[in-house]
């Protein structure tokens, strides 16, 4: 089989960004701990503020982390699956297989399994599954 279906991606997100996210995450946890301690001490207003701040910070850190991972994932250069159609012109026997390096349209291949005539490549193509959006027009 061919070696064409590999894809590559950057291995990690920016260290700088990761550091900021981790600091914000740590501060949000500290805020939540303080919130609990304030609540225990009976200072409900301060506890409420700290709780809100803690959750917002935690949410933001999570969002930035999620967005960065999404961006990293979207940067893969995907090699699409390319298929080769092999046909026997004499008996019409047809087979479809994955593309192999060295294949080209109208290349003569091995003899046909059925009639022993030379088989040739009649098509090399990729199939795109998703349909294009028409936006209702």
């Amino acid at each position, binding site marked *: 089989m061919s070696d064409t279906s590999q894809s*590559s991606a950057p291995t990690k997100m920016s260290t700088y960004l990761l550091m900021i996210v981790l600091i914000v995450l740590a501060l949000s946890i500290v805020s939540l701990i303080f919130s609990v301690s304030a609540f225990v001490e009976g200072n409900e207003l301060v506890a409420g503020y700290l709780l809100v701040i803690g959750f917002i910070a935690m949410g933001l850190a999570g969002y930035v982390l999620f967005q960065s991972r999404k961006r990293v994932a979207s*940067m893969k*250069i995907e090699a699409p699956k*390319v298929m080769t159609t092999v046909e026997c012109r004499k008996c019409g026997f047809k087979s479809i297989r994955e593309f192999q390096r060295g*294949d080209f*349209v109208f290349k003569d291949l091995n003899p046909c399994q059925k009639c022993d005539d030379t088989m040739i490549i009649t098509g090399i*193509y990729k199939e*795109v599954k998703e349909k294009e959006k028409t936006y209702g027009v």
Partner: protein
Amino acid sequence: MSFVPGSDAISQIISIVFYGVFIVFIFYGQRIQMYVMIREVEGSLFKLKYIKEEGRKIAIETIKEIGKPQTDPSTRVDRYLEYFTISPQSMDPAGIVYKLDHILDVRDTRLKDEVKIMAPASDEVQVNNLENTLEAAMALNFIYKVVRHYYIQGKKTLSLYIIMQLQMILPLVMKEAEAYASALKAFAYGQPIGDGAGPLVAAKLMHGYETRKLPKDCVVASVPIEGRNAFIIKAEGPGGNVGKPGDAVKAVIEENEGKIASVIMIDAGLKLEGETVGEVAEGIGAAIGGPGVDQFKIEDAVVEYHIPINAVIVKEDIGDAVSPMRKEIADSADKVIDRVKNVILERTKEGDNVIIVGVGNTIGIGQ
């Protein structure tokens, strides 16, 4: 001091914050907008840098794998990626086409020689494929550098208009860069690309008939179609090659002393949004892209001998044109052949000579 009379402390704080935000937006609104745009451009630039690096990596790996060089080709590849071509001076435009033609020929020879040095073990087909791979990497390198230039310039001058222009065209630039990124692997593996629609039709028409070489990097076969004698022309495959159809068409017309009833050109044409990939359309004129040299030569030759020129195109977008050929495009080849036969039947008489040219990159397509 109370900003909102009769309200509590929290409401006052919210009011102050609201006024503060309002004032900040009055004075710094444009600047904030600019920073948002800069951030957006920065993200795309980051992605472009990654694509460019991948392009370089794929090119180097392919050269090492196919060309079996004795030394590391990285330095030469880096030098190759920085090559530039200076277009001829156009103050006096007379004869500019031939000047441009000459410069493009020199460029082509120079780049092919470089590839041969980098990949000594590669054959002619592989040299063409490697050249195409490197050209795609070169295009990605250029796109990245231009976007980076305007990004830095915008940041340096803090000019909203530089950043705004860049941000506005960025979706199109990214689409093109992504198209080149997918082209890289197709070129490296020698897979047919969407631009090969024309050569694919020509190959289907000429397959099984004797071919001979034409200038430059083209082949021709004489094929009987509907009682006419058709000269089918395409770039010589299966290596990545577009040939010079201008010279080839001119040569065939001159060989036949201008006795050609019609020239039919088949090419991939850019589709508009909303149109279907692989749709076939028919028209008049020289269907050929590129710098315009070949179009000029073909038009020159057909005008000289008063030969009608027809075109059949297969619609696709820029991404489809440079990435592995989609099934819809491959399937459209038979529809194109029907259209071509139709044109021949309607526009020429039995026994006439017809030229059919399959224009485009013939990578992965033999004859």
